[in-house]
C-alpha cells in the first residue's frame, strides 16, 4: 500500500502540476519558435503578448458573466477565448505594420528586430497595466475540481488523496486540441506548407511564388492564437498577474531552445522537459520518500533539492547544458 500511496503523492504533487505547466509552456514556446523560424528573430515581447491576450479574455469573460452567460462546469473564459484570440491577432498585425514591417523591408539584422521587440514589450506591458492594473486577478469559474482528494480517498481507501483541478484538465485538453490543429494546419493545408517552406528556405519559397506578406500575416495570427491560449490557460491555472507573464519569457525561450529553435515538436518536448525538471527539482520529496522507506529511515528534512524561488535557475541550467552539449537542441533546430 505504501508504494501506491507514494505513487499517488507523486502524481498529485509532481506529475499533474508538471503536466499542466508543461502544456502551458509548450504552447508559449510554440508561438516563440514559430516567430523565430518565420520572422527570424527572438520575440522578447512574447510574454507580454500572452499577458495582453489574457487581458482581452478576462475582459470578455467579465462581459459574458455580467450578462449571465456561463459554460456550465467549465470556465467561462473558454467561451471568451476565440474572441480574445481575434483581438490579439488584430493587435499583433497592427504592431507588425507599425513596427516590424519596416525592418523586414530594409533587411535589418535580427538583433535590430529584437531591439524593436523590446520597444513593443514596453508598450504592451504599459497597455496591460493601463487596462487592468497590477494586482493579481483570478478569473476562473465553474467546477473547481474534476476529482477531489476526498472522493479519491473514499473510492480507493488510500491514505493519500489525488486531486485534479478543472483548470488542469482543461489545460491539457485545450493544449492537445491546439497542438493537433497546429500540426494539421502546418502539414496538410496549402498555407501551412508554404509557411514551412518559407521557414526552410526563404529564397526558394519566394522563387516558387509564395507570397511573403501572406505568410507573415498568417504567422502573426497563429502566434496570437497560441500566445492567447497559453496565457489564458496559465492564468486560469495559476491566476493572472502581469509580472509573472514577463518572467515566463525565460522558461518559454529555454523550452524553445532546448527543443531546437524553429522546431514545433521540439518546442513541445522542451516545454515538458523544462516544466517537469522545474517541478521535480523544487518539490519537497519528504512525503513520497517517507512512504517508500521504512520508518527507521524516514527523512528529517524536506528532501528538497532547491527552494521554489530558484525555479529560474532550473530552466537556466538546462538551457546552458543543452547549448553546450548539443547547440541545436533536442530536435535539430536552426541557427541563423
Amino acid at each position, binding site marked *: 500500500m505504501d508504494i501506491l500511496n507514494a505513487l499517488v503523492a507523486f502524481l498529485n504533487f509532481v506529475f499533474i502540476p508538471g503536466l499542466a505547466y508543461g502544456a502551458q509552456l509548450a504552447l508559449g514556446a510554440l508561438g516563440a519558435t514559430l516567430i523565430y523560424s518565420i520572422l527570424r*528573430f*527572438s520575440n*522578447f515581447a512574447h510574454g507580454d503578448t500572452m499577458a495582453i491576450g489574457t487581458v482581452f479574455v478576462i475582459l470578455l469573460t467579465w462581459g459574458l458573466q455580467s450578462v449571465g452567460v456561463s459554460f456550465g462546469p467549465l470556465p467561462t473564459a473558454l467561451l471568451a477565448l476565440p474572441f480574445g484570440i481575434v483581438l490579439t491577432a488584430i493587435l499583433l498585425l497592427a504592431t507588425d505594420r507599425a*513596427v516590424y514591417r*519596416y525592418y523586414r523591408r*530594409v*533587411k*535589418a*539584422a*535580427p*538583433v*535590430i528586430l*529584437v*531591439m*524593436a521587440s*523590446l*520597444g*513593443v*514589450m*514596453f*508598450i*504592451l*506591458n*504599459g*497597455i496591460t*497595466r*493601463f487596462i487592468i*492594473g*497590477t494586482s493579481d486577478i483570478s478569473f476562473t469559474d465553474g467546477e473547481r475540481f474534476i476529482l477531489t482528494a476526498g472522493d479519491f480517498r473514499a473510492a480507493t481507501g488510500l491514505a493519500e488523496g489525488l486531486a485534479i483541478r478543472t483548470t488542469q484538465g482543461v489545460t491539457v485538453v485545450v493544449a492537445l486540441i491546439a497542438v493537433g490543429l497546429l500540426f494539421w494546419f502546418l502539414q496538410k493545408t496549402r498555407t501551412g506548407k508554404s509557411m514551412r517552406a518559407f521557414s526552410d528556405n526563404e529564397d526558394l519559397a519566394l522563387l516558387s511564388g509564395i507570397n511573403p506578406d501572406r505568410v507573415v500575416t498568417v504567422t502573426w495570427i497563429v502566434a496570437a492564437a497560441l500566445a492567447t491560449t497559453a496565457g489564458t490557460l496559465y492564468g486560469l491555472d495559476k491566476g493572472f498577474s502581469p*509580472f509573472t507573464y*514577463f*518572467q515566463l*519569457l*525565460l522558461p518559454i*525561450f*529555454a523550452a524553445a*531552445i532546448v527543443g531546437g529553435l524553429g522546431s514545433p515538436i521540439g518546442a513541445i518536448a522542451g516545454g515538458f522537459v523544462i516544466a517537469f525538471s522545474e517541478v521535480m527539482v523544487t518539490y519537497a520529496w519528504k512525503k513520497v520518500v517517507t512512504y517508500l522507506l521504512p520508518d527507521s529511515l524516514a527523512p528529517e*528534512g524536506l528532501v528538497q533539492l532547491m*527552494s521554489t*524561488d*530558484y525555479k*529560474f*535557475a532550473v*530552466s*537556466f541550467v538546462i*538551457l*546552458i547544458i543543452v*547549448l*553546450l552539449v548539443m*547547440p541545436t537542441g533536442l530536435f535539430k533546430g536552426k*541557427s541563423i
Partner: protein
Amino acid sequence: MSGAPATPSMTAAAPAQGPARALLLAAFVAMLFIGTGLFQSWTLALLIVNMALVSSIMALGVNIQWGYAGLFSVGTMGFVALGGLSVVLVSSAPAPGGWAAGGPGILLGLMMGAATIAAAVMAAAKLPKGRIRTLGVAAILIVGFLIFRGIFDPAVQAVEANNPAAHGNLGGLGLPVLLAWPVGGLLAAAAAWAIGKTALGLRSDYLAIATLGIAEIILAVLKNEDWLARGVKNVISLPRPVPYEVDLQRSQAFLNWASSWGFDPITASSIVVRLMYTGLFAIVLLALIWLSQAALHSPWGRMMRAIRDNEVSAEAMGKDVTRRHLQVFILGSAVIGIAGAMMTTLDGQLTPGSYSPLRFTFLIWVMVIVGGSGNNWGSVLGGFLIWWLWVMVEPIGNWAMTVITTGMADGWLKGHLINSAAHMRLLTMGIILLLVLRFAPKGLLPER
C-alpha cells in the same frame, strides 16, 4: 551599430553635425534640469541629477558591451544588484554573533560547492568521451552537492536564527563605504567572468536569453539567501560617504554659513548633501568616461570595433574574438557593478524586492540606444534625458489625465484613468525606443 542598415533617413535627420550638435543637445537636457529646479524644487532636480549620473554610468557599461563589441547582454540588473550587495558586505557593521554562529560553515560550504564545479569541469575536460565521462561527472556533481548541502544548510540555519528581527545575516566588514564601489566592480567582474566563460560562445540571441536568466538568478539569490543580505527583509541605514542632514543642521558653522547667504538651514542642508553626492558621482563618471574614451581611441578600441563590424575578417587577421569578447564583457559588467554600488550608497539601503528588469536592464538599454550606441558621451546624454523623462512622465501623465478627465462625471472610468497615469512610463519608453530605432537608428549622438 552592429548590423544596422545604413538608411538614407538617418543621415538626412542631422541638422547640426559633430560637437555643435552634442553641445546643443546637452544644453537642451541641462535646460530640462534647470527648469525642474526653477519650477519645482532644487532638491528634486538634484535628486534626479544624482540618479541620472548613476544611470549614465550603467549606460556607459552597457555601451562598452554593446557599442564597442556588439554583445547583446540583457543581464544588467544582475550586475547592478551585485554592486548593491557589495555595499552591504563591505560597509555595513558586522552582525553581532553572526559570524560565530555559522560563518566558517557557510564559507567552507561555498568553497566545497566551487570545488565540486571545478572538479566536474576538469573531469569533463580530462576523461575520454563516452559513458565513463558522463557517469563520472554526474557522480562528482551529486556527491559534491550532498556534501555542500550537508555543510552549508546547518550553518545557514544557525546564522539566520541569530536575532532574525534585527540581523539574521553575517553582516559586513564595517569598512568605509567608498571602498564598496571598486569592490562592487570586482564582484560584478568576477560574476561576468563565470557567465562569459559559459555563455559567450553562444549566438547573439542565446546570449541575450542566458544573461536574462543570470540576472533573475542573481536576484533570486539576493532575495532568498537571508544570511547574505537579509533577503527581502532589506538592509537599511547603510553608512554614507557624506554627512547627515541632521548633523549639518546641528553644526553651528553650517548654520552661520547658511544664514550669511540667507538660506533656510533645512533646505540648505539637504541641497548641500545632495550636491556632495553629485560631486562624488561626477568624479567617478568623468574618470570612467576618460578611461573609456582613451580605450576607444587606442589600438585596442580599434580592434574591438573591427571585431564588432566583421567578426570573420577580424578572426582572419589573427584576433582572438572569443577572448576579446570575454574581456569587454567583464569590463562593461564591472562598470555596471560600480554604478550599482553607487546607487545603493545613494539610497542608503539594499532592497532586493525593488529590482526589476524593466527598470534596471531595459531602461538602461533605452538610454544607450537613444543616446547613440558606441558613443560614450551619447550614453551620458541618454542617461540624463531618459532618466529625467522616467521621473517626470508620471507627474506629466497625471496632469494630462486630470485635464482630459475634467469634463467627465466622477465615476469608475475617471478614477481608473487617473490611477492609470502611473503606467504611462513604460508606454512612453517603448514609444521613444521605437521612434529612435526607426528614425534615428544611430541615436542622438552618432558614433562618428
